[in-house]
């Protein structure tokens, strides 16, 4: 049995991320949401946290401190406590780097990892989601058909985070007609390749600050060596599960931010002579928020811990993502209720968190732990 208390490293990681979130993210979050964009200075500053170089092996220019899914989950939650959109933007490079590091061939690692060890924010991103009703991450419609010396990539991806800034894409595509996940692979695609079109920036309901685009692939010729993991391909279930764990952690961060904001508000807001926190209708909602958040976190930590042990994690990762995203929406909804009229006013962050929580439930592959 593992312990539930954080070790010293984890406490330091949490404290450092908490501080970054409070000082660098929260103050600009509303403006980023209104402007539908993220300032470059912020991205550069976030790069100094070393989230990407930290895990890359020394021989590729990184620090080789190894990857801990649990530590990454703790980190993701704290960053998302600052702001969900900004936290996702900060973590986007890892969407490309982690799969390459964990599943790539030596050649792929040598080619792509050193580029992410410099001192400038660099983006590689992951393209999973497609424009289909009932999109299923295990039933991918984008195809990669094998020819003699290359694959031909066809299809359309949406909600690809930071696509406009990305130099490389990791594109999830189906290599066989079978409908199970056996035939799903990921391909490293350069931005400059012929047949690739980056669509207009999407206008989304929530996560406004995070730029996302549609990407269209029309007969893109992908060299054989760009199939992630080479001839043997990848364990796609692991890839999608890591994304789910990372995403779940960010949803918990958003919920935690909402709860804390509402507690402060409910203690200060006087109605009929007393702070509304003393009214059962409010107190019960606050209590339920706390129960949801703690439950979601326990499930998330268990999934992350399982991932670190390299056990089969499809089920736990899926449960964690589903539960975390449902609780985040419920908590954000309660948040709007607790703030009453102020819940829908843009002066308070709760309405933004509500939109973010709703948009969030659509996501797959925007964070990775």
């Amino acid at each position, binding site marked *: 049995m593992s312990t539930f208390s954080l070790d*010293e*490293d984890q406490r330091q990681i949490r404290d*450092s991320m908490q501080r970054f979130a409070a000082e660098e993210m929260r103050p600009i979050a509303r403006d980023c949401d209104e402007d539908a964009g993220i300032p470059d200075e912020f991205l550069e500053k976030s790069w*100094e*946290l070393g989230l990407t170089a930290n895990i890359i092996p020394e021989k590729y220019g990184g620090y080789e*401190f190894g990857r801990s899914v649990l530590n990454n989950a703790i980190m993701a939650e704290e960053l998302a406590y600052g702001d969900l959109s900004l936290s996702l933007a900060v973590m986007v490079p890892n969407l490309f780097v982690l799969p390459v590091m964990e599943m790539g061939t030596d050649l792929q690692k040598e080619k792509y990892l050193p580029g992410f060890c410099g001192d400038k924010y660099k983006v590689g991103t992951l393209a999973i989601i497609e424009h289909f009703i009932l999109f299923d991450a295990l039933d991918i419609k984008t195809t990669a058909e094998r020819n003699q010396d290359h694959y031909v990539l066809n299809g359309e991806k949406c909600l690809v985070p930071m696509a406009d800034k990305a130099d490389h894409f990791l594109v999830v595509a189906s290599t066989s007609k079978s409908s199970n996940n056996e035939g799903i692979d990921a391909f490293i695609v350069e931005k400059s390749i012929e047949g690739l079109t980056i669509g207009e920036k999407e206008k989304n309901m929530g996560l406004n600050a995070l730029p996302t685009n549609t990407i269209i692939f029309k007969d893109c010729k992908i060299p054989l060596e760009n199939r992630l993991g080479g001839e043997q391909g990848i364990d796609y279930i692991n890839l999608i599960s890591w994304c789910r764990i990372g995403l779940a952690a960010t949803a918990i961060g958003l919920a935690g931010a909402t709860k804390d904001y509402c507690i402060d508000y409910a203690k200060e807001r006087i109605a009929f002579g007393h702070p509304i926190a003393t009214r059962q209708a409010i107190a019960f909602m606050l209590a339920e928020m706390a129960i949801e958040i703690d439950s979601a976190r326990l499930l998330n930590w268990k999934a992350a811990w399982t991932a670190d042990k390299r056990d089969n994690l499809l089920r736990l990762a899926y449960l964690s993502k589903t539960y975390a995203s449902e609780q985040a929406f419920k908590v954000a909804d309660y948040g709007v209720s607790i703030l009453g009229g102020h819940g829908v006013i843009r002066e308070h962050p709760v309405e933004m968190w509500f939109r973010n929580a709703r948009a969030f439930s659509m996501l797959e592959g925007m964070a990775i732990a």
Partner: protein
Amino acid sequence: MNTVVCMKQVPDTETLIKINAEGTGIVTEGVKWVMGPYDEYGVEEALQQKEKFKAGKVTIVSLGPDRAIEAIRTGLAMGADTAVHINDAAFYEKADPYATASALAAAIKDLEYDVIFCGKQAIDDDSGQVPAILGELLGLPVITQVIKLEVADDKSKATVTREVEGGHAIIDVPLPAILTAQKGLNEPRYASLPGIMKAKKKPVDVKTVADLGVSVEPMTVIKEMSLPPARQAGKIIEGEDAAEKAKALAKALHEEAKLI
């Protein structure tokens, strides 16, 4: 350039402080502890100087119980090279500024340094005396409330800017010297992930006060500690018009507040 940074672990500024049952200190359970914010400017400045000179060592020296190691690690995670942890809970418990400075001086005297940085004050007891006493014990000049530092290339002297009422004073000081950091000196960096991971491999020299050969007794004792009185509710002056309100206000100031 070699620097020593004196650092104290203090309660986070957002922690709700309660007085203990004896009334002589604060309840330490449930408190979130952090590196003193002014000490953090000291750590950052030491790192920046080291980066500027592309050589040297930054050593953190801290007096405190077991828990102080976390603040020390934060400093190491920011980039400091080594640390001395004077881990002596019994001594720390009753240490006044003189006793604290004596322990720090004993730990620092054998270290190599061009500058000793201290925060201008610890934000818990706010005494602000330790750097000055330390200067006396080590025979070094002390400049307080430094907001800018320029060290000469040969490290023989420094030009420092300090805050004075309504303006700045620019002072030349021979090195080594003790400088106390004021807000504005720099913007402390965040501990990066690689920094955090590296920190645990950095050496921390743990010593008791006895190991350092210090046997001083504190010169002062805290007799009692209390929280500020709760703020009274304000009073709204009623009246038909401004003249009547002014009259009521003057009356209240004279009769109730006894101010006029």
